[in-house]
């Protein structure tokens, strides 16, 4: 076994342990910290699968923003009573997850991936094949950027619209209740108009 494979198996095992910790630990803060660890290890997996740009994106997006967002959400939603984190039906959920895992592993083992790769390579046109033989084996940010803004330009624009809608929508959802609370709290107090009248 070469060094790269050994490192991959070690990272994969650590990621699985961290993910298990996310769903079984009894403290929400430990759960969030283990999730950040699992997402950072996922960045390492991307690096081992030879996509360094994606590893960078993973660390930036998940390690930088998503973790902060999750920790803030946990701090803002502290439950009053001592929390019971799991449903009473969690053994059923575990059974369902294990059955799904069995199905997925069966599907992975029975599929012949080598044939699939060969079929994929032979189905490419000759122009593509010459491009493939000329292209470098590793996809750098340059090739990815070219692909993103030529082949995938329309999905890219749709994704930007989705991001904008999500931004405005989450702002609306988070702000609206503040306004209604402010109105309901202000109602029993004298309004600014009556105060102005009293001052006059």
């Amino acid at each position, binding site marked *: 076994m*070469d060094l*790269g494979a050994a490192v*991959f*198996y070690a990272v*994969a095992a650590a*990621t*699985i342990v961290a*993910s298990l910790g*996310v*769903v079984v630990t009894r403290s929400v803060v430990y*759960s969030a910290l283990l999730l950040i660890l*699992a997402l950072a290890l*996922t960045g390492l*997996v*991307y690096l081992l*699968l030879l*996509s360094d740009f*994606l590893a960078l994106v*993973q660390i930036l997006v*998940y390690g930088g923003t*998503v973790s902060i967002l*999750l920790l803030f*959400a*946990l701090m803002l*939603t502290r*439950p*009053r009573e001592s*929390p*019971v*984190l*799991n*449903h009473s039906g*969690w053994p059923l*959920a*575990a059974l*369902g*997850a294990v059955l*799904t*895992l069995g199905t*997925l592993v069966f599907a*992975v083992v029975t599929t012949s*991936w080598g044939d699939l790769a060969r079929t994929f390579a032979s189905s490419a046109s000759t122009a593509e094949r010459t491009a*493939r033989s000329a*292209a470098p084996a590793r*996809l750098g940010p340059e090739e*990815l950027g070219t*692909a*993103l803004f030529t*082949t995938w330009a329309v999905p890219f624009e749709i*994704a930007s619209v*989705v*991001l904008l809608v*999500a931004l405005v*929508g*989450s*702002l609306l*959802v*988070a702000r*609206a*209740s503040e306004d209604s609370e402010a109105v309901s709290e202000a109602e029993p107090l004298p309004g600014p108009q009556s105060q102005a009248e009293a001052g006059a």
Partner: protein
Amino acid sequence: MVPIEHVLIFNAIMFCIGMYGVMARRNGVLVLMAIELMLNAVAINLVAFSSRIDPVGGSGIVFAIFVITIAAAELGLGLAIVLRVYRMRTSVNVDEVDFMRW
């Protein structure tokens, strides 16, 4: 070089852990975290397909970028809804959020 089957089985395990978390957790924030785990497993799968089956096309990596984008948008929106529910109910337990049931 790690064979693709091992990468796929690793991601199947991670996906099922996330699935268990979605079904078993009561806290809304923890459910969102488990959804992040599932989306991550799928993104690694796409990268594995890209690097093992189509090493120079790059479609899998572009798809993984889109998955990360949508996951970030989903998490922001989900946390906004959780915060709103917490203000209305002072609870983030998903089994107590039943005011949209008819």
